[in-house]
């Protein structure tokens, strides 16, 4: 076979050359909520706190600082960093900590999961830690309560290492073709015996048994204050080959993230416009907000500083701040244009209308449709 034919055959055997990476924000570029948060103990700070599309789930006394770091291997600018600030050297059976992202069912139909044509999956990533040893990366089928885990080893302390893990095709349990969470990618950092005392699934999907989800030699990252774990360049793709990380522009990645979380106000400290407000009643403006992309579901409203976040009206009756204690509420949720009620003003008249801004350094209003 000629080289050209070999190349054509190789290309034909692969999936798309672009949009290969099913992971959003795998290079840890986007952190709309902030760049650092305290996570733990016992579920405190769980969920989405800094990097878009990535959250922590935990139980136990370990506490960490979770941040967007500028430590990164060549070719990357950022990583996710978890640094232990409160240690636990003696884990109870039910303690755990994993770092994860979730994928919508309609975005993983190409895997053919649950059919005779199911395809294997390859997860690749860069990782660095001072805590060497065995770790676990799990793929969880959230629709059918199935899971497959593989172990990887951090061989050298404080050294970026590239890992590649291939998970077997699963002919059982199709993913729902909808906008809900179907496939979860979970990096275990702490595991009590409840999760690592069984027969490790070793890359083969099986009905989820908690004891089989984590490798028996899984390290306890939380055993020493100062332990650090970094990850970036996370790529999940169809097939048994890991291809080079599919870099996307910041703007492209941000748009993908905004399907799940989007700031509706500007970020400049001097002019954080939320939208045009019209009179609703003597204390309230009705504000029109357009979402940057149609979001995954009708979004919730989240404020940076609830209870103390003021809004300013530059309106026909003058310029004034509201009382800062009144939450902006949803009046109409039909995307792509929402209306919010921003109350806490005083003495508005029916002719008052104008620009409504978010006040206070660093404050913002965001729309949340995360999985």
């Amino acid at each position, binding site marked *: 076979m000629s080289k050209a034919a070999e190349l054509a055959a190789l290309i034909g055997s692969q999936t798309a050359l672009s949009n290969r990476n099913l992971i959003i924000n795998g290079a840890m570029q986007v952190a709309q909520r902030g760049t650092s948060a305290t996570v733990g103990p016992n579920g405190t700070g769980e969920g989405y706190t800094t990097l878009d599309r990535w959250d922590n*789930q935990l139980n136990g006394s370990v506490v960490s600082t979770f941040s967007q770091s500028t430590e990164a291997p060549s070719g990357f600018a950022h990583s996710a960093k978890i640094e232990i600030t409160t240690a636990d050297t003696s884990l109870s059976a039910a303690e755990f900590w994993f770092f994860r992202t979730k994928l919508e069912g309609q975005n993983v139909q190409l895997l053919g999961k649950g059919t005779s044509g199911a395809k294997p999956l390859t997860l690749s990533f860069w990782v660095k830690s001072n805590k060497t040893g065995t770790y676990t990366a799990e793929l969880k089928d959230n629709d059918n309560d199935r899971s497959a885990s593989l172990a990887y080893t951090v061989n050298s302390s404080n050294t970026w290492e590239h890992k590649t893990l291939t998970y077997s095709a699963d002919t059982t349990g199709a993913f729902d073709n909808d*906008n809900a969470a179907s496939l979860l990618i979970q990096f275990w950092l702490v595991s009590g015996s409840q999760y690592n005392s069984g027969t490790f699934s070793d890359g083969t999907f099986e009905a989820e048994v908690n004891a089989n989800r984590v490798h028996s030699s899984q390290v306890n990252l939380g055993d020493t204050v100062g332990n650090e774990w970094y990850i970036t360049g996370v790529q999940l793709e169809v097939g048994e080959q890991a291809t080079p990380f599919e870099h996307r522009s910041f703007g492209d990645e941000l748009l993908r993230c905004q399907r799940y979380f989007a700031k509706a106000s500007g970020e400049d400290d001097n002019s954080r416009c939320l939208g045009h407000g019209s009179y609703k009643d003597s204390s309230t403006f009705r504000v029109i907000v357009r979402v940057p992309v149609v979001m995954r579901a009708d979004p919730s409203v*989240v404020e940076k500083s609830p209870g103390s976040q003021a809004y300013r009206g530059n309106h026909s009756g003058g310029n004034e701040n509201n009382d800062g204690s009144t*939450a902006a509420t*949803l*009046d109409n949720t039909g995307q792509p244009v929402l209306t919010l*009620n921003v109350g806490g003003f005083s003495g508005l008249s029916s002719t008052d209308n104008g620009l409504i801004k978010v006040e206070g350094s660093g404050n913002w209003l965001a729309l949340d449709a995360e999985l």
Partner: protein
Amino acid sequence: MDEVTITEAKYVVGSEGTNTCIIVKFNGQQVVVPVNAPGNRHWDEIQRQVAAGDLTIADAD
């Protein structure tokens, strides 16, 4: 895992005189959740906890 604590749930009435959202503390964080929004994780969890008898949503002021 994915255990959520919801407190201080209260409906808010919108311009049309109907409940348009719920102000709630979701794991301690204030969130304004649209009503009748399947797929919204806050709404789905509120519905689950209401159905389980673990949560009552207060009427709007």
